[in-house]
């Protein structure tokens, strides 16, 4: 595999994992516009643990997830008291604060960033991506997944049906944070360098857009969304700025024509039914 191809697949893998982290919370009805903050936590945890403490790669990645999950968990309690636009803004604020803390901390490298000594190959990223994708499908196929989607559609009634709405929301947020942390850890180890300026609002916005455009109704959404927006610009050899311009046009068009996203529940059922002759459940 050429170096270029390898690089694209690594980015694809990281984007897919990141997308699933946002998808898991979005499927429950919460929009996280601060994904970059949790990715940064994982990335910096990874950088520090492998540089300073000489952790082996596996352990580093586990801790990246744990840090991402832990901080999400702590934040979930106050954040999930907010709703709608307030929650979007609160998650946005979290990411800005994380970036701000990193910029101000000399230990964390400040504006200069940290060079990461350990290195991983694309193959590892892809393997982990496959595991996460399978996990995503598995989760949504269980009664917990059903409960999550119920909370998304009508949390008041879900509650009356016996679903522990609060636990589901906090759980989803925490799990999302852990997976975002994992994607950050992989980023740090692959690219060998982390800086706070990278984990900015644009990153948070893009990953949320991958998920919303891919579709939040099924576990295919984040896979399709992340793949579409990572691979198509590469395939068409579109330069950086034009890529985002076209991205913008596609988003506006999608919201007019197909706001539920590329993969919807109905569309999936029709495909499933046609090929397998039976339903999804």
């Amino acid at each position, binding site marked *: 595999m050429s170096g270029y191809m390898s690089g694209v697949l690594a980015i694809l893998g990281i984007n897919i994992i990141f997308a699933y982290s946002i998808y898991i919370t979005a499927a429950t009805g919460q929009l996280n516009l601060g994904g970059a903050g949790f990715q940064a936590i994982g990335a910096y945890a990874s950088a520090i643990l492998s540089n300073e403490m000489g952790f082996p790669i596996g352990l580093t990645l586990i801790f990246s997830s744990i840090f991402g999950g832990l901080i999400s968990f702590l934040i979930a309690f106050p954040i999930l008291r907010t709703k709608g636009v*307030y929650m979007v803004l609160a998650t946005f604020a979290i990411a800005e*604060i994380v970036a*701000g803390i990193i910029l101000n901390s000399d230990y964390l490298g400040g504006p200069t960033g940290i060079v990461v000594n350990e290195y991983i190959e694309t193959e590892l990223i892809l393997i982990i991506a496959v595991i996460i994708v399978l996990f995503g499908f598995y989760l949504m196929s269980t009664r917990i997944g059903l409960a999550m989607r119920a909370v998304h559609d009508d949390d008041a009634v879900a509650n009356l049906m016996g679903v522990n709405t609060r636990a589901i929301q906090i759980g989803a947020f925490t799990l999302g944070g852990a997976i975002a942390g994992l994607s950050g850890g992989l980023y740090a180890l692959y690219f060998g360098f982390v800086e706070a300026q990278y984990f900015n609002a644009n990153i948070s916005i893009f990953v949320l*857009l991958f998920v919303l455009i891919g579709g939040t109704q099924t576990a295919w959404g984040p896979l399709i969304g992340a793949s579409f927006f990572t691979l198509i610009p590469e395939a068409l050899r579109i330069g950086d700025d034009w890529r985002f311009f076209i991205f913008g046009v596609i988003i506006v068009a999608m*919201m007019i024509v197909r706001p539920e996203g590329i993969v919807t529940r109905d569309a999936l059922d029709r495909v499933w039914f046609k090929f397998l002759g039976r339903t999804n459940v």
Partner: protein
Amino acid sequence: MFFEQLLQQVINGLMLGSIYISVAVAFTLTIGILNFLNFTIPALYMLAGMVGWSLSHYGLPFGMSGPINWFLALLIGIICAILGSLLVERFTYRYFKMKHGDATEHAIPLVSSLGFLLIFEYLILIAHGSDTRGFVTPFSNQDWRLFGFIISIPQFFSLIFSILIVAGLSILLNRTKLGRALRAIAENPDVATLMGIEVNRIVPIVFVMTGFLCGVSASIFAINYHEVSPYMGDHVGTKAIAAMVIGGLGSVWGAIAGGLIVGLSETLSIYFFGASSAQITVWGLLLILLVFKPTGLFGHNAIGKGKF
């Protein structure tokens, strides 16, 4: 000595706040009346600034004229912001129909506005590149010295101007027929239609106001800080959102208060703790507010709950 320096910083902070005021009002109006967090606003701001600069530097496109007078250039910039805003209305808000009212559906206009943010931002980046450019006006560097404090004249007048524009807007909202229609739409768009209000004709007016406010703010920035860049929207956008929340979503006077508070906290934070601390201070303040008192200073409960 310390006290004087502190007061100078306070003055600087208030002046900085004046930039944030108009943009914050644009955000707060859109969310108050249309329940729509319009992320295109920073791009409209940038559009006005960059178009204004481009006209004053190069003149009209395709060599139709030489460099244009700064005032006219900024005015055309404002008009471009308004046109851009109307584009957003046409292709974003007008298509939106709520079917189920769940969380991801509410996000649709927000997502569209993000799309337009990308469109405008990258269009300018492609056409112009990423350089910051200087903007020259006849007022550069004129200060008053008052009791040993430096007050920049253009900044002072900008602050007054911002407040006047927003006060005018407030009067429009509270005392005119148009204002009543807007407030009716804010309460309940369906009932407003039943009452005979032509929602489809009035909603674009909110977008016109949005474009206007962004354009005015960008002009003030260009005049006072003598520069424009394709990233100027990003710098102001997040601060203006913070200002909106602090003042309370939907409250115009709240946006003024919020803008000044953000300007103040930013300046004081930089003065005491260094340049990169401003981010934490402003956003930390914002987060605490969102969790404990989301209605901010003057907002009220109905706005934004479960809505975008």
